[in-house]
């Protein structure tokens, strides 16, 4: 590499990494992301309220979602909405619902239980099953995956809150 390019690259690279280090030090309780292509969502991201009880679990029902998108007047709309991060004793679970009109087209796990290698493995196994069930049921009324009770329940809660927020029910 030529000297000028090397210097520019070193400066830009270290600046980017430094900025990323600082911004990563205080991660938001939920992952807030910009609008996705082809969606009509707008409005600022709000951190989703999560509370930790004695068991470290929370019910998200009735609480505001992390990320509310879409103008209510325009229909049919498509977009995505993030459920709140629901804490469990094995780590938080948070899902994003991608919808078109009243139809749920996809459920993406943004965060799954990760307190240990075992819980990562369990939730990684459970997530595809839960996603399949949710897409088939088009709701959060889905069965608990055996062996992954905490993940399943938290998944249901995050999903239900997202569905409520997007007025899909």
């Amino acid at each position, binding site marked *: 590499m030529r000297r000028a390019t090397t210097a520019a690259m070193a400066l830009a690279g270290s600046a980017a990494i430094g900025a990323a280090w600082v911004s990563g030090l205080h991660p938001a309780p939920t992952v807030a992301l910009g609008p996705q292509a082809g969606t009509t969502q707008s409005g600022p991201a709000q951190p989703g309220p999560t509370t930790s009880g004695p068991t470290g679990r929370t019910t998200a029902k009735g609480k505001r979602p992390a990320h509310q998108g879409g103008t209510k007047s325009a229909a049919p709309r498509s977009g995505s909405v993030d459920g709140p991060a629901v804490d469990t004793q094995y780590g938080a679970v948070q899902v994003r619902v991608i919808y078109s009109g009243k139809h749920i087209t996809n459920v993406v796990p943004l965060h799954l239980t990760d307190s240990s*290698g075992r819980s990562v493995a369990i939730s990684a196994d459970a997530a595809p099953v839960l996603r399949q069930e949710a897409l088939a049921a088009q709701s959060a009324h889905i069965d608990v995956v055996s062996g992954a009770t905490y993940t399943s329940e938290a998944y249901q809660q995050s999903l239900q809150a997202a569905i409520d927020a997007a007025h899909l029910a």
Partner: protein
Amino acid sequence: MVPVSNTLSPTQLRRGRPADPTRASLRSGARFRDWRARAGDVLEVLALLSLVVIVVEYLAGGGSHDLASGNAGTILVAVSRVTGLVAMDLLLIEMLLAARIPWVDRVYGMDRALKAHRVLGRVTVPLVLVHVLTLVFGYAIRDHLGPFTGPFIESFQLVTGGDDLLFAAVATVLLCIVAVTSVSIARRKLSYEWWHVVHLSVYAAVALSIPHQFSMGSDFTRSTWVQAWWITLYVVVAASILWWRILLPIRRSAYHRLRVSRVVPQGAGVWSVWVRGRHLDRLPVRAGQYFSWRFATPRLLFAAHPWSLSKAPDGRHLRLTVRDLGDHSRELRAIRAGTPILVEGPYGAFTTESRTRAKVLLLAAGIGITPVRALLEELVRQRDVRPGDITVIYRADHESQLTFRSEIEHLVSRHGHRLHLLVGPPVHGSWLPAAAPGETPSGRAGDVARLRASIPDVAEHEAYLCGPNGWMRLVRSSLHEAGIPTDHIHDERFSW
């Protein structure tokens, strides 16, 4: 700085008018150097950028939080995440370096690209091991397992917990085997064919490691952008390998229909293979380059050999020359005329494309003469060089090993160029034969003195050298000490 009289800076060359073929050729050399510097910058910035993007995404996504304020288990898992991400990116860069991409070849030459590939490989495999070990220990601590049995229990649980980590474990084992075999071939304990077969399992290792990245690695699935980024990288790498390593060679071989024309003995243990084919004038090949050759015989089809052209391509024939090195080169002797040939290539940046100096010094040792002879022929034939401006130095252990001696003498004498034949057994620490009585003794200083004595204006030459690696190292340092800047010394490394 006073410019050396016969060296043209890019600006001088742009301003000047094409007075003669030499100047025109030097001007195009300067233009090529400009392009090469820019293209090299772009490639290197892209490679570094891919690393920066990955690290930034990791840190901003909470990596720095875990590293700065986590407990021991969290820190270990965070280290594991970042080493895994960086190792994956390096693996992709390595695969691109070995994918025979034409821009990489023209900018660095395949020999240097593959050297970078090896150096990165030495970093990647340890990174993968760190990734695995920190993950196991980190999770063992988080699961409150004992310090001695914990890692074993944790590994067992991880590998049996879901298919994806089992695949990843297999991928790790494959990578380690590849690393071990690559060290072995460097030490000449393993045949090239075995090494190659094992090395191909890297593709399997990378494929097996992908599922766990997307099912468990939150750094891969955090957002659609991040996912799209990684998927784009995978698609680009896979498409490059598929096109440049597989489809293009097949297409080229099918189009040109190369066949053996005849085999000619060239002296003690050396054979030339003449190759004919269709539309050879449309084959984008230059003197000094090589192909990977596969001859359609039962024993040679599955071993591609990199052999240089020993004749400047003339649009009708190709000629490669091979010395019997004990492997497959001996079988070429018995190859029949008409045998079909599959080629990959041409590869190599050992060409006159970047020449910006009028005077040329060609140095060869042993069978390294093959690409040098092609360069000489090209320079003489295309009238790129003024009479007397080429000096050839040809080193051999014994007079019988001076392959192409008469051809070179003919090419050199016709245009008043110079040829120095240096014959004699190797001398330790010197690239020249033993010093005659009265000369400076062999060695670092002696070699430079003798080089300057026989070529007083050596510093003004564009130098091209090819021979055994140890010999080339000594020549390079002599040339450099004699005043040739590094970017005017070109070499082709044979044994890689």
